[in-house]
């Protein structure tokens, strides 16, 4: 309800009575304000973003400062916990709440960054393959087969091992191994769109190939790509967690959620919160992104029947 009144105040036009008088943008706004899953996912994601941006500023405790006299303190709700360390401390006596808070930044950066890299590679290749066809399409399809045949995690591990781990390297490596979905979706969408009359007429009025791709084709594939994008963000975050867990991702002492889980694995029987807490954080983020992605698919699909009031 609050969400709807808020949106209504922002975009009053999209709540006029005449549905057929709405622009596509208005219709999307209206549909999104009625989609429960989308609203929940988006709100949760916004909260996580706010945490990542403002959390470390407000909660001014260093995630790197060690105090070996206060190792493995339990969180506040456990026996022996105190408000000084809400989530307790890790094996080196660092504040666990601060580490998870900082880890949010790292995980979000890697998730969105890697999905962006994957999207740029996949959409570029996919649109080219779909639009030009012929030998371009064959080469791209060959690349796709190679990508699908190689075990992604193993490849990522090898590359990170050879170049040396850092956040940038991890982002690019994950992105470079996750563009198959983007390619497949944008290729088939382009093949469909390029035969429509508005593309033919753009050719007739003398638009160049570049103009047609940028103005007519990519904007129309956008609704499908944005859905793949949200899925890939979730996958990339999990992938980073796996890489860190295996020791080739983010390097300590930088806190990423995957790394926190990896570090906590020795204490799994005696201090399980070291794994459970970052696990819950990871779970919440991925679920919120996936719910938002599912919602986006429903909203941007012109055939979907999301109730309008």
């Amino acid at each position, binding site marked *: 309800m609050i969400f709807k009144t808020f949106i209504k105040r922002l975009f009053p036009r999209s709540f006029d009575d005449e549905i057929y008088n709405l622009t596509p943008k208005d219709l999307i706004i209206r549909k999104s304000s009625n989609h429960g899953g989308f609203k929940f996912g988006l709100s949760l994601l916004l909260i996580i973003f706010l945490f990542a941006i403002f959390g470390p500023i407000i909660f001014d405790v260093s995630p790197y400062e060690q105090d070996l006299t206060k190792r493995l303190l339990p969180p506040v709700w456990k026996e022996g916990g105190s408000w000084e360390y809400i989530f307790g401390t890790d094996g080196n006596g660092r504040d666990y709440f601060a580490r998870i808070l900082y880890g949010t930044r790292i995980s979000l950066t890697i998730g969105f960054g890697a999905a962006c890299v994957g999207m740029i590679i996949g959409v570029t290749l996919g649109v080219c393959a779909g639009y030009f066809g012929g030998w371009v399409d064959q080469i791209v399809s060959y690349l796709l087969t190679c990508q699908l045949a190689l075990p992604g995690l193993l490849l990522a591990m090898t590359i990170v091992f050879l170049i040396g781990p850092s956040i940038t390297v991890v982002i690019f490596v994950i992105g470079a191994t996750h563009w198959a979905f983007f390619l497949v979706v944008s290729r088939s969408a382009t093949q469909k769109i390029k035969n429509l*009359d508005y593309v033919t007429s753009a050719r007739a009025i*003398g638009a160049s190939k570049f103009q047609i791709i940028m103005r007519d084709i990519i904007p129309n594939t956008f609704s499908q790509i944005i859905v793949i994008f949200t899925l890939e963000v979730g996958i990339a975050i999990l992938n980073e967690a796996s890489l860190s867990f295996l020791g080739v991702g983010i390097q300590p002492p930088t806190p990423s959620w995957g790394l926190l889980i990896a570090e906590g694995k020795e204490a799994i029987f005696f201090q399980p919160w070291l794994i459970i807490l970052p696990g819950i954080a990871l779970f919440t983020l991925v679920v919120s992104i996936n719910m938002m992605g599912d919602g986006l698919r429903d909203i941007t699909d012109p055939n979907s029947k999301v109730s309008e009031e």
Partner: protein
Amino acid sequence: MSDLLNIQNLEISFQSNNKNLKTVENFSINLNEKESLGIVGESGSGKTLSMLALTRLLPKQASVSSGSIIFQNRNLDELDNKNFYKEISGKKISMIFQEPMTALNPVHTIGKQLLETYLYHNNVSVEKGIERALEILDAVKLPKYKQRMDQYPHQLSGGQRQRVMIALALINNPSLLIADEPTTALDVTVQKEIIQLISDLRETIGMALIFISHDLGVVSQISDNVVVMKNGEIVEKGKTLKVLEKPNHPYTQGLLDCLFKLEDEQKKNQIKDTPIIKVKEISKSYKLPAKIFKKPEIIYAVKKVSFDVKFGETIAIVGESGSGKSTVAKIINGLINKDEGKVEIKGQNIEDIEISDRAKIIQPVFQDPYSTLNPIHTIGYIVSRPLTINENKSESEVKEEVIKILRLVGLSEEYYNRFPNQLSGGQRQRVAIARAIILKPQILICDEPTSALDVTIQSQILDLLNDLKTKLNITIILISHDISVVKYFSDRIIVMYNGEIIEMGNTNNVINIPKDKYTKRLMSSVFSLKKNDIKFT
């Protein structure tokens, strides 16, 4: 004669957003045995929906909210679904649909589909069933009907499939046949045969017929009585001839005017003797994927086609689907490369003309109003794009010109910031025309510009094109399968068949004294409704 079907005050509503939208209201018809009734109306008028209610095939969201249906003195509302399908649907009432390509199940043979329908309703042996199936396939005049039992739908042509559909509908000797635009998806020459067939079978079997169509000409041929629908309501009903002679409702009057107007003489352009387009022996072929040990098959879409178009002339290319008429148009427009031959525009080879110059000489208008405009751009952007790509003009100049052109095609300034999905089919087609003429081209290629539109809108768009033709002195190449449009609009006709030109000449000559066998068939298959016909009867 006794009443066969009596529908009283039928009301169909759509459930949407907790609101009831009434789509059909006060629908009452009365049908005698062996009577034929035509239902006419534009798309969305509820003509199909009311018949789907009768056969209980309504989409999920729709429901019959009130009214009674009495068929052979039985109130159909009292029948539950199971008994309805067993006793009425498919046995007493059958239906034929518009699209023969999708109405048959592609994985079963024709024979199996016929047998299934027959055996479900009749408790007889398979041998009897096969006998009956052969009998009915013979009755619908399917060529080589004995071999067809074991064939699959993809082995038949569109017209043949529609015959099988009719056989399926008639195999149980129904008392009422509902034909929902049975010929709209077919080529004109086939159209006439199918209508003749339905009309003949009605007499031999002695069933009643409800014929749904948007084409008043077709309906007038086949039905005794006619019902005209608009916006879910019956606006006029009565004997077909009476309605055509003296329409009471302004909407019916409008429909008739649209038809009759096509007979009127046109203002003609000044035609100069010099040709603007010269087409010399162009060919275009496609290779089918090669099979092992076989030469790849080559299919000619266009075979050695040559003709001239003079300045200011309107030339029409007619032919059935697959005859290569659209391919010719695209080659002239430079959108497809030809294999052989030569296309000269104003004395210059089409390949030698710069794309930006070509855009200022020749522009296309397409058939489908829904795919011709990019849904994510505003109308203003779509229409201004040819200018921004090809000419250096300031933003305000461009906007001014776009608004001027929009006014010219009959759209007001407020459409500038709208999106295509807010426009109707006719309005979209106006925008597409605006985009085509904003560079002031001398040649316009119209590929079936009106065939996806309703009759009333169709005549508006034709008026607009006609108006522009004389105002801007444009040469038009019109591609169409609709002879009445061609007759109304063009100076010369080119008839194409299987990629070749088989006849070419002045419009009146070709239509009135066709020489070629195919042209004769094409011209005789037009159901034109003429003022004189009605007064005569």
